[in-house]
């Protein structure tokens, strides 16, 4: 479950400098999130599709990953068309959907998918560890970066412990149902995970002390910008700038 399928690959996007990817993804997300014009949003979506294509990600998996956000979007579709005031457009029973409402919901749908497509293409194509190192290079607070590393490192260990406990329950005939026995059992499971993690924290701390730990953490990371990275960065920045200009000057 906690694997990074998309990080494996050797496309143009995979080889981009992770710092470039983060910067581009950040600016793109911000510009699109605040945009409202359809020209801008549609171009953004087109751009999103392009980047995912460039990253040559498996389509089925890609669509699967778009499901979570779109559940929320569908939820919104049940409301917005009816609650935004404006010209009546269609009706379902006593409810009247407005033209403006439908446009608003469409706008949100496009925005969401465009942003997440770019997120998947640029960020999920990078291993999480590389991203952590890139964040460090981009001067993210050190404490946060290290917290991120440790959390990520031990998610796997603790997840394995969790699966082990779950299997131990299963082989003893446990079936989750809606009852107190089930909730109590899950509470014990969570409690046990926390207790074990605490002990592990103690042991890891000891191991670090034995290796001379005095509160200072290090990261080894060296990225070097290649020409293609610089060119892509400039190109992408221009495109994002273009989107911004399109949004605020209302030309075209």
């Amino acid at each position, binding site marked *: 479950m906690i694997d990074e399928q998309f990080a494996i690959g050797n496309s143009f996007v995979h080889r981009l400098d992770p710092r470039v990817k983060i910067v581009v993804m950040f600016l793109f997300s911000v510009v699109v999130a605040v945009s409202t014009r359809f020209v801008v949003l549609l171009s953004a979506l087109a751009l999103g599709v392009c980047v995912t294509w460039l990253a040559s990600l498996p389509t089925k998996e890609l669509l699967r990953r778009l499901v979570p956000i779109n559940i929320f979007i569908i939820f919104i579709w049940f409301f917005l068309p009816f609650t935004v005031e404006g010209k009546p457009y269609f009706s379902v029973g006593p409810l009247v959907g407005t033209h403006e409402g439908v446009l608003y919901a469409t706008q949100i749908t496009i925005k969401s998918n465009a942003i997440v497509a770019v997120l998947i293409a640029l960020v999920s194509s990078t291993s999480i560890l590389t991203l952590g190192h890139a964040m460090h290079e981009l001067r993210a607070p050190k404490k946060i970066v290290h917290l991120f590393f440790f959390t990520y490192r031990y998610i796997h260990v603790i997840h394995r412990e969790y699966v082990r406990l779950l299997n*131990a329950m*299963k082989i003893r*005939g446990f079936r989750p149902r809606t009852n107190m026995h089930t909730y109590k059992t899950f509470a*014990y499971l969570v409690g*046990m995970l926390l207790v074990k993690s605490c002990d592990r924290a103690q042991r890891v701390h000891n191991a670090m002390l034995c290796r001379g730990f005095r509160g200072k953490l290090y990261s080894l990371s060296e990225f070097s910008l290649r020409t293609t990275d610089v060119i892509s960065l400039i190109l992408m920045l221009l495109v994002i700038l273009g989107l911004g200009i399109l949004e605020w000057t209302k030309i075209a």
Partner: protein
Amino acid sequence: MDKNSLIINLEDICFAYPGRAPSLDKLNLQFHQGDRMGLIGPNGSGKTTLLHIIMGLIKPSSGRIEIFGGHVEQEKDFRMVRQKIGFLFQDADDQLFSPTVLEDVTFGPLNLGKSQDEAKAIARRTLESLGLAGFEDRITYKLSGGEKRLVSLATVMAMEPEVLLLDEPSTGLDETTEKRLVEILKSVDFSYILVSHNIDLLIETTDYIGYMISGDISVDDDSIPHTHRHMHKHGKYAHKHDLSLPDKKS
């Protein structure tokens, strides 16, 4: 059920963890009522995987599993399997999740639909039979490694299974606890499959040994009696092959 009826019958089982080389590769296994089988093999040869397949914790990609004469495939088929086959995990000492020993041992019987009182009675009986009487209210988390292992065994035995699968039950145990485990295994009249890296343990507790290598088992029945003679220092310490060889005084 007659003595030698087939309990576990695996045919051409294949399994691979995602993105890995196959862990089990067209594996066949016949296990009969009354058998005490040992299983040995290098790290990563698929021993644990095999036991997980039998318990239905992972599903094979191909092949056929028959247990107690019936074909098992779905999760609900395996529910029955798990009542009749008890499984002691490789890391048995971290499979306890309840605050107290009694709660942990009653967990299985309760899931099988026993009442609280029945479950407690079973738990007490099981604990006693393993020499753990008086452990009921101990906090599982605070037990020592060896005690945890024995309590884990109790949690499994409380389900009153007909067969036991034991995945390296003796790792990390000292000789005393290991000996106690061996005594328990010898005294119960379960059929079992015992995985271990310790050949002496296997020789002592099992009737025949399967050798697992890269996802398949070869059972070698021509156990050739042979003689070693050796000499070593530290003769004063009790040491494992002294205990494990019934005919050492020959």
